[in-house]
């Protein structure tokens, strides 16, 4: 039986929509132009098989779903398929079998610009943050808004607040290449949430952070959850599930299943 991750009743969330994102799109319009409905899964996988060129059977029939306002923690040993799961949900990996729905859209039907528009509804924080190295922290954080066509004077106050919350100096003119590992992770997290996405994918979000900064990161995710965002976190640290109030799923050998109470970690 499929177990789903359901969150609290969602309140409307805003995704900054650039002009290009307001164009009618038959696939995305149901997703992007209405309030989040807790009844529509943010993510739904059915019998998904997927892999990479060199290893084609990473995911072997994954069934999974998460709803708006849910926080799902996916844990598992290295090689279990956590990264493939995230790659699938961030529209990087194509399934070889099964169906993948993200924010209500069947990703197999999305091409080019429609795919890019859907990606703007997803905040992704990779384990190894890839930043625009020539830009400073503020520019990196605000890049998704800039790409969405928002004006700098409109988003600057929100971006500055967000950066301050994460202990980043919004006046810091250093290029990203000069930031410390901890700063890079916080910039990547701020960038993932700045557009108020409807789905956040985070890989080991608190790894390498001081306890107080890790706590802020978790508070930020919790506040996004209250706004109706579905949050999927991959980690090897199952202890994160408690402070986040997350539903725990475990992955092993390319399969994913909800952790039953009292289960031992894989």
């Amino acid at each position: 039986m499929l177990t789903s991750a359901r969150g609290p009743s969602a309140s409307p969330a805003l995704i900054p929509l650039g002009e290009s994102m307001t164009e009618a799109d038959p696939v995305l319009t149901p997703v992007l132009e209405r309030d989040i409905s807790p009844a529509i899964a943010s993510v739904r996988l059915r019998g998904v098989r997927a892999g990479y060129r060199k290893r084609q059977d990473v995911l072997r029939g994954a069934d999974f779903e998460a709803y708006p306002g849910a926080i799902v923690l996916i844990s598992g040993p290295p090689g279990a398929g956590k990264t493939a799961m995230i790659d699938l949900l961030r529209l990087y990996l194509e399934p070889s079998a099964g169906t993948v729905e993200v924010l209500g859209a069947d990703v197999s039907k999305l091409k080019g610009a429609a795919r890019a528009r859907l990606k703007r509804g997803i905040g992704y924080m990779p384990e190894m943050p890839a930043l625009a190295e020539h830009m400073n922290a503020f520019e990196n954080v605000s890049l998704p808004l800039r790409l969405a066509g928002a004006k700098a004077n409109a988003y600057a106050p929100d971006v500055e607040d967000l950066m301050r919350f994460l202990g980043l100096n919004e006046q810091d003119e250093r290029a990203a290449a000069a930031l410390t590992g901890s700063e890079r992770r916080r910039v990547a997290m701020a960038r993932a949430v700045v557009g108020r996405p409807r789905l956040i994918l985070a890989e080991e979000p608190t790894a390498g952070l001081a306890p107080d900064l890790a706590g802020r990161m978790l508070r930020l995710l919790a506040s996004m959850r209250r706004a109706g965002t579905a949050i999927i976190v991959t980690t090897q640290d199952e202890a994160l599930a408690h402070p986040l109030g997350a539903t725990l799923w475990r992955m092993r050998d390319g399969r994913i299943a909800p952790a039953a109470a009292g289960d031992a970690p894989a």
Partner: protein
Amino acid sequence: MTPIAPRAGGAALFWVVVIACLLAAVAVLAALLANRSAQSADAVLRSQFVARILEPDAASTLDDAALALNAIDGVDSVRIVTSERASALLRNWGGPKLEASDLPAMRLITFSADRSPRADWTTTITTTMRGAGFTAEVYGPGPAAIESVRKARDLADVTIAIGGVLFGAALLTAGLAARVRVAVDRALIRPLADMGATRGQVSRAFAGRAAVEGFTAGLVGAIAASLLAAWALSLPPFHSWASQVRVGDSAPLLLSPLIAALLAAAGARSASNRLFAHAARSP
């Protein structure tokens, strides 16, 4: 606001394009001038004739013969070759001890055609001169002279071909350099794709940067080529070429920045599209 595509970091590639454009512009300019010089030499040689007055056999008839020649339609710049000048010419073959008095009276008149003469023009001159009471032999440029001019023209053609190839290679270099420049920044494309940037947004960012850099490199190369050409034309071996320079010769210099910008933008666009496709979706 910092541009999406970084401006810094491409100095080496920039100078590669500058040097390529400089070489191309110089090569094209040299080709144009070489071709024009060869054409000019050919035209001058083919319009030069010598008339040897055989009869009446008197020194005083040379002035009258010159007048008669000058009256013929198409004849320009008639000049009597003095016996000293004729001796000087013959001395090239006879050696320095040759005295003018030892030589037969040559009674030569050089003249040129004011337009490109027909093949049978020497016959026309001979006939017309006979009508005026002069028996004359008319000589056009010899086969050896024509052959040397033909070689000069062949050389000019080769120069043009080399100039064209260099011009094309320089522009290709601009396009390839732009591709390499995008590849250097490929790490930026992945997060852009993850953030939902469209292929168009990414390619515009890189193509815009490449166009600016290609234009600037082309302009610097063209200015450097102009200065180099001006310096070269001031040197004694190229003085004769300086007179051949036309306003239109600046066309390749003006065009190279524009074409370099276009090709660099095309190269960057193509590279960024390819890298974006890899970044956006697992192959």
